[in-house]
């Protein structure tokens, strides 16, 4: 009992010293894994033979110390502490057959693997940095000769480009995606506008074809469009009550007269 107590107090002192040393530069740790790795060094054994249980206890003791000293630990340190506490219980208690998931040994093995891997990365990082380095141990060419870039532009055109170019000039027209050609269309709005200006004079019955725009009777396409627009405009004007329309027979001329008064 006595022995045990003194043992405990001895190790407690050592642990406290270690922990305090750690606490002083807690900022220097790059996360909980780094802290674990540092703690594991106190075991002075090969990482493969490390006692994960002991390590968990060391870590938990460290966190306790930090708490006692009112040192705020980042959340991931606490998460690790919680996980290690869980791991510790799994390692200590007999396995519960009803419990699922990996065994305490699996978890401990993985943690040991993580520590070993991190240590290995640190070792090779040091080896890497110890290598001969460019600009420190060996050197590149001091006087570099610029490679002159001779930029040569080669212009090309295809026969089709040439033909299209020529065709474009010959038709003085753009080659463009298909669009409705609107220049042969006389819209109803245009017809209405034109007729509104003219119906003032239509005191007597007049053939609506006389309201057609000038020059639109030459080209059949334009004639057709102008006729339709004028007719539609006449109907519109009749609807508005501005004019009256009549037709004596099928295909006979449609006549229009201003509607007075009302």
């Amino acid at each position, binding site marked *: 009992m006595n022995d045990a107590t003194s043992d405990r107090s001895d190790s407690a002192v050592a642990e406290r010293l270690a922990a305090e040393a750690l606490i002083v530069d807690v900022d220097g740790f*790059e*996360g*909980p*894994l*780094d802290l*674990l790795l540092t703690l594991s060094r106190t075991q002075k054994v090969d990482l493969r033979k490390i006692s994960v249980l002991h390590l968990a206890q060391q870590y938990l003791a460290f966190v306790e110390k930090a708490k006692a000293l009112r040192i705020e630990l980042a959340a*991931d340190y606490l*998460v*690790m502490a*919680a*996980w290690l*506490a*869980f791991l510790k219980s799994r390692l200590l208690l007999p396995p519960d057959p009803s419990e699922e*998931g*990996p065994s305490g040994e*699996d*978890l401990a093995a*993985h*943690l040991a*693997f*993580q520590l*070993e*891997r*991190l240590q*290995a*990365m*640190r*070792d*090779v*990082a040091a*080896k*890497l*940095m110890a*290598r*001969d*380095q*460019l*600009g*420190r*141990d*060996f*050197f*590149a*060419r*001091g006087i*570099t*000769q610029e*490679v002159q870039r001779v930029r040569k532009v080669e212009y090309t055109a295809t026969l089709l480009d040439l033909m299209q170019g020529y065709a474009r000039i010959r038709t003085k027209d753009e080659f463009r995606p298909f669009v409705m050609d609107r220049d042969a269309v006389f819209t109803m709005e245009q017809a209405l506008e034109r007729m509104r200006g003219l119906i003032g004079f239509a005191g007597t019955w007049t053939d609506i074809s006389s309201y057609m725009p000038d020059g639109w009777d030459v080209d059949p396409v334009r004639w057709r469009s102008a006729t339709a627009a004028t007719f539609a405009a006449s109907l519109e004007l009749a609807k508005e009550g501005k004019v009256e329309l009549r037709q004596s027979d099928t295909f006979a001329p449609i006549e229009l007269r201003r509607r007075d008064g009302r």
Partner: protein
Amino acid sequence: MSDDTEIAETETDGELEQSLFEAPPMGEQERMVEAILFATAEPVTVKELNDRMPHGSDAAEALVYLRKRYEGRGVNVVKVGDAWAIRTAPDLGFLMQKETVETRKLSRAAIETLAIIAYHQPVTRAEIEEIRGVSVSRGTVDQLLEMEWIRFGRRRMTPGRPVTFVVTQDFLDHFGLESARDLPGLKELRAAGLLENRPPPGTLPQMGEGDVDSEEETEEGQSELFED
């Protein structure tokens, strides 16, 4: 140009006519490779060499001779990835104090991150974090990218398609490595299984970005943990 032709004449003699259409003799090709490598500070790929040399040249073969010629000399022909460069012999570094460029001191985090990328490439940020057990700051990766020691590799074909990082030719050049396979201790690490991407069994706390699969498991574990 004229010297070039002269040499071709003297060396090939009767075959002059042929040589006008064929590649220059190997000795000439070696001179050409030598001139190009000397002129540039950056490593030059075999393809670039061939592109710059007369049609039909075989820079790869010329390099074999040239490398041999410079063995043991004050400067050496070195291979850097798939490119070639001339570098001073490392044992003469002491003569170059004047030339030494102050290199930016890398933080411990940056050095470790660099080593992890070199040894585990292609590697995702989450994997780096898993190995280091701490999140990787943006600045660290940015610094390494800026130094052109790492670059983005292919995206990983896993959910989220995360980008990966790989080391560059500049990295190899800086550390005098022919290829990433020549990294110190690589074989040993592989043999020890330390380069395997071993998934944590179940309930390890997720460092960095947690992966989706184990989320509920972790939560379950933690609700248990936090009972007291």
